[in-house]
């Protein structure tokens, strides 16, 4: 086996979607890599220009289907900024609660599929079992398992129900998390595959605009939740690790699940003890949006998502731009992969938690 070009994807079992990597390999060693994206380019940004603000709302869940609430939140907040609308406090707490639940679900799916990429079969089934608990709850309140369309301009669609059921779900998941750690954190094979592979230092991560857990695993504190208005009421730590390798990213995500559970406990307490409006009662059909632009930033499980809406005063957005975390995580792949072995591709690529629809939009 001498030097050759290896074409990985666009249909490959562990690219989780349709990423194509053109690898330059010497035997098993990777000398270079070029990424080709766009196999799931659905023209979401162009689509917005032909739809009203309300029509576009259900589709934003599909930008990153594992964290639909975050996309909804970004879009809805941007429109609210254009409308200069303040939302009721209860609505913002409901939003935080659901987003954090969604973050847990997303990280659980990541854990399962990551280990599947590394060749371990069982954790996939275990994490999907726990994720299903959250999805069932989401379905109860919104009617859909993945595409919720639950946040509306000025609040949420219905008042939240079955709040009592959240605590047992989250408690089970946190308990099971300890089981996963028993299975994985001390597993010599898992450690040998993830420790010191794909090391990303802080400066490089910042230069390549990496955000989210991937950045926090490289010894950074940057978490856009800490600046967000709606998270001001909640106490939580920012999960962080120093090594910057795949194992650090794994630890950060597990830690984030625990921290999210703390936010959820607080939110549930507030929701149970107090009432209030959940919606401003705005008629979403005919919105009077003036010309202008608005940005909404949210910390999703995969980093910073920004929704930028530019309006020219008509009923449809003039331009909608989505900035997503995975887009930049894909960009850094050649840097991380070069010099590693073929079997490290999955360990590194998987640990970045790339969602292809978010990359291609």
């Amino acid at each position, binding site marked *: 086996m001498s030097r050759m070009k290896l074409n990985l994807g666009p249909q490959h079992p562990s690219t989780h979607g349709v990423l194509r990597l053109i690898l330059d390999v010497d035997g098993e060693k990777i000398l270079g890599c070029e990424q080709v994206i766009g196999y799931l380019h659905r023209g979401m940004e162009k689509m917005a220009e032909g739809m009203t603000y309300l029509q576009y709302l259900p589709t934003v869940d599909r930008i990153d289907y594992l964290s639909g609430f975050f996309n909804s939140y970004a879009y809805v907040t941007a429109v609210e900024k254009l409308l200069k609308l303040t939302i009721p406090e209860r609505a913002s707490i409901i939003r935080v609660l659901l987003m954090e639940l969604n973050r847990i679900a997303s990280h659980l799916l990541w854990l399962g599929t990551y280990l599947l990429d*590394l*060749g371990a079969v069982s954790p996939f*089934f*275990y994490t999907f079992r726990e994720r299903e608990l959250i999805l069932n709850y989401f379905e109860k309140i919104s009617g859909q398992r993945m595409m919720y369309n639950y946040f509306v301009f000025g609040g949420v669609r219905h008042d939240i129900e079955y709040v009592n059921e959240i605590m047992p779900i989250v408690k089970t998941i946190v308990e099971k998390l300890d089981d996963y750690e028993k299975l994985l954190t001390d597993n010599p094979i898992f450690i040998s*595959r993830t420790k010191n592979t794909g090391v990303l230092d802080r400066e490089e991560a910042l230069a390549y605009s990496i955000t989210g857990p991937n950045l926090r695993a490289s010894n950074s504190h940057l978490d856009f939740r800490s600046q967000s208005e709606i998270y001001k009421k909640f106490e939580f730590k920012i999960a962080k690790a120093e090594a910057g390798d795949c194992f650090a990213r794994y630890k950060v995500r597990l830690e984030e699940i625990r921290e999210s559970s703390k936010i959820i406990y607080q939110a549930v307490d507030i929701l149970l003890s107090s009432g209030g409006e959940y919606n401003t009662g705005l008629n979403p059909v005919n919105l009077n949006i003036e010309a202008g632009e608005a940005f909404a930033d949210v910390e999703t499980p995969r980093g910073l998502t920004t929704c930028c809406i530019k309006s020219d005063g008509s009923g449809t957005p003039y331009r909608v731009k989505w900035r997503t975390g995975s887009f930049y995580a894909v960009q850094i792949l050649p840097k991380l992969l070069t010099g590693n072995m073929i079997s490290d591709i*999955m360990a590194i690529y998987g640990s970045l938690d790339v969602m292809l629809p978010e990359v291609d939009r």
Partner: protein
Amino acid sequence: MNYLYCAFIELLAKYNFPEGLALIIFPLLPFCILALGLLIMVLFLVLAERKILGYLTQRKGPNRVGYRGLMQTVADAFKLLCKENITPSGADKFLFTLAPLIAFIPVMLVWGILPYNAEFDLMSTPANLIFYLFLAFMPVLGIFLGGWASNSKYSIIGCVRAIAQAISYELPIAFSLLGIVVLSSSLNLSQITLAQSSVWGPAKWFIIPAFIGFIVVFISIIAELNRCPFDLPEAESELVAGYSTEYSGMRFALFYITEYSMMFANAAFIVVLFFGGYLSPFGGYLSNIIFGDSLTANILVYFEQTFWFLLKTFVILFLFILIRATYPRLQSDKLLKLSWTILLPLSIINLFICMLIKAIGGAM
């Protein structure tokens, strides 16, 4: 053999067949039983793995086809048999067709070497241990040829990995087996089995003196079988399907069968070497205890020996499946490092321990 032979002749005489017929049929009979057994065993081994993996991950596994899904793998086998055989345009057509056969045929022979009971030992040559090792290596050649002939990059990487893995793990196995050879003073699998017999059941099983050897052989055999966590040649999440990427239909099925029958054969091999083969774990045989020393008892003993043999084998197989459900896959470079830096020295230490034990035993 005499008891069974007599019984067989009696059976023939009962239905008025000439005695000469027995001379022809009787030697062929074991081979037919073996081939049939192999097919059934592989089909149900695959099913068992799917079922056990299912239950380990809180699922039911196949349960719609036949009684509780028992016919699932039969359906799979039929389907593969009738599926289109595609030969990729850039492939070496002759080798592409030959490779699955090269992998599959030695497996049939491997099954013939194993002593299933005191009489059912078809190829009992003085040094069939070495013969076994040789044949057990052959499927890798088939894999290598197949991967090379496919003219696909994934296949090439898969087959090169397979050959590198086989070479590095063959050595620790060979060294550990030397320990067994020293302990039993024989290269014959039946005699190795008999050397482990004692009145106290497992007391003289070779796992006790050669425990390190057992660990080394167990790990190396999983690696030889290309099973998780050493399933690099067909690493599904890396190399699509590894060496078999371009194979479809019956040719793929042959690889599949090879894999699982080698799994069974190697599990049985471990049982012969370390767990007393077909010997009863209680010292005496239950049939002898119940029926005394009658002809019935003597025939039943054979079945009982086979029963113990299979039971022990299934325990080992279950361990294989359990390990598959537990561990992630190793990296390719670390896999080779494990063999050369840890397993090989361990197997040499094991050899010394065995020699020491033998020397002390001989002196006493």
